[in-house]
């Protein structure tokens, strides 16, 4: 496992995503105000740059015509077709077993955000 220094914690504001290249792979490092996440910048659907989409929340499971908003900052929505992904697991909210994007472990050391590659 190799740790890659991507960005200083003070440089990444809450809600922001920095897209960078690590070992030839495009990866988005995202901070939701609590945690840092590293997500492969490729949508499994049509291979476009996923991390250029919106980091947001979503509607939670509910009864018909009941709307419950939640998971603010935990959902990444593709800029093309709007597919939603869980930033923690990389799994698509619909068809999670079929569609998932690779996520990487992240650690903070000396106020730097480090992405762990296998």
């Amino acid at each position, binding site marked *: 496992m190799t740790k890659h220094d991507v960005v200083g914690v003070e440089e990444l504001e809450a809600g922001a995503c920095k897209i960078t290249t690590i070992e030839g792979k495009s990866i988005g490092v995202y901070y939701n105000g609590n945690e840092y996440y590293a997500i492969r910048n490729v949508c499994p*659907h*049509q*291979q*476009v*740059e996923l991390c*250029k*989409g919106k980091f947001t929340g979503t509607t939670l499971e509910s009864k018909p015509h009941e709307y419950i908003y939640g998971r603010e900052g935990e959902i990444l*929505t593709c*800029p*093309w*077709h*709007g597919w939603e992904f869980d930033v923690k697991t990389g799994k698509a909210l619909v068809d999670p077993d079929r569609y998932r994007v690779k996520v990487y472990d992240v650690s903070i050391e000396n106020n730097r955000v480090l992405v762990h590659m296998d």
Partner: protein
Amino acid sequence: MEASTTKKASKFNHGIIDCDVHQGVKSYDDLKPYMPRVWWDRLKAHNATLPFLMFRPIPLERNDAAPGNGLPSGSDPEFAKVDLLDRYNIERAVLTGNLLSISAHNNPDYAAALASAFNDYTMDTWIPSDERWLGSIVVATQDPLLAAKEIDRLGSHPRVVQVLLTSASREPYGQRRYYPIYEAAARNNLVIGIHGGGEGDGINPSTTAAGYPTTNFERHNILAIHHMSQLNSIVCEGVFERFPTLKVAFIEGGLAWLPHLMWRMDKNFRAMRNEVPWLKYKPSEYILKHVRLTTQPIEEPDNKELVQMFQLMHAEKTVMFSTDYPHWDNDTPLFVLNKLPEEMRRRVAYENAAEMYQLQERGLLAGGVAK
């Protein structure tokens, strides 16, 4: 003849023609020079005067296709050339514009003036910017005589290949009030393109045939009924008998419904032919000869079912590739075309569109006889 066709086909092996690219304006004020002063004040309120009622949780224009400096996606030809044509090596692209609810407007004179202005803007800013862009003349269908006038005004331009109507209309397009549009298209040797837009907006009938839906999800699932309704009307009313050279492209309306409609039409024709004595052939024969459909937004079954669907609808004749750039649900060439067997891919990616728009004959192919 056979031999030369084969030779041409092999030359076009890996080319792509994109049949649906949406160009727009940087600002609606840019249309002022092309419009009578009387309409200028409305341009400030184009969102109100161009009916577009349904809330879209995902914006229509892709944010990641924005050219920068706060300009809307699809408003800068120089950016679109790099972002779309160069990136995917697209040889020719048919522009379809973004006046997608023009025929929903209550005022036929304003709608016609806006369509004319948009066409002039396209001719002045997009068409000269790159030889890969091909143009469509958008017309407002509220007044078919005004629409015909607009087609005659611009139809002889060497890089205009199509007349664009939106799929929602006050009455179905096979009816006689629309003949002036078809006469003008035939006179100018232009394809009629019918593109989604304006369903349930303004003066048009409901978004679904059963009433107004609640969500954009529900609306988008059922959009194809408008294309089905228009195709059904055009074939049954005998438009292709009346205008034997006319070709119609159904753009952005899905595909999988076509076998259903062809089978149903042919079956009913056996029983009810005497209602339509002007039809000399089975409805599906008119469709295979005169009608083509574009891929985006393609249904996404698994690959095996996709190929089966393409076989059922004779895709080697009937289907043309499109991206729908820069809209939210656009398809990359890699996604759709890579799923098809080689022979079918070549027909869908290139040859069907080259034939439909007569690009070889017009000298509009890079690999053709003239540039």
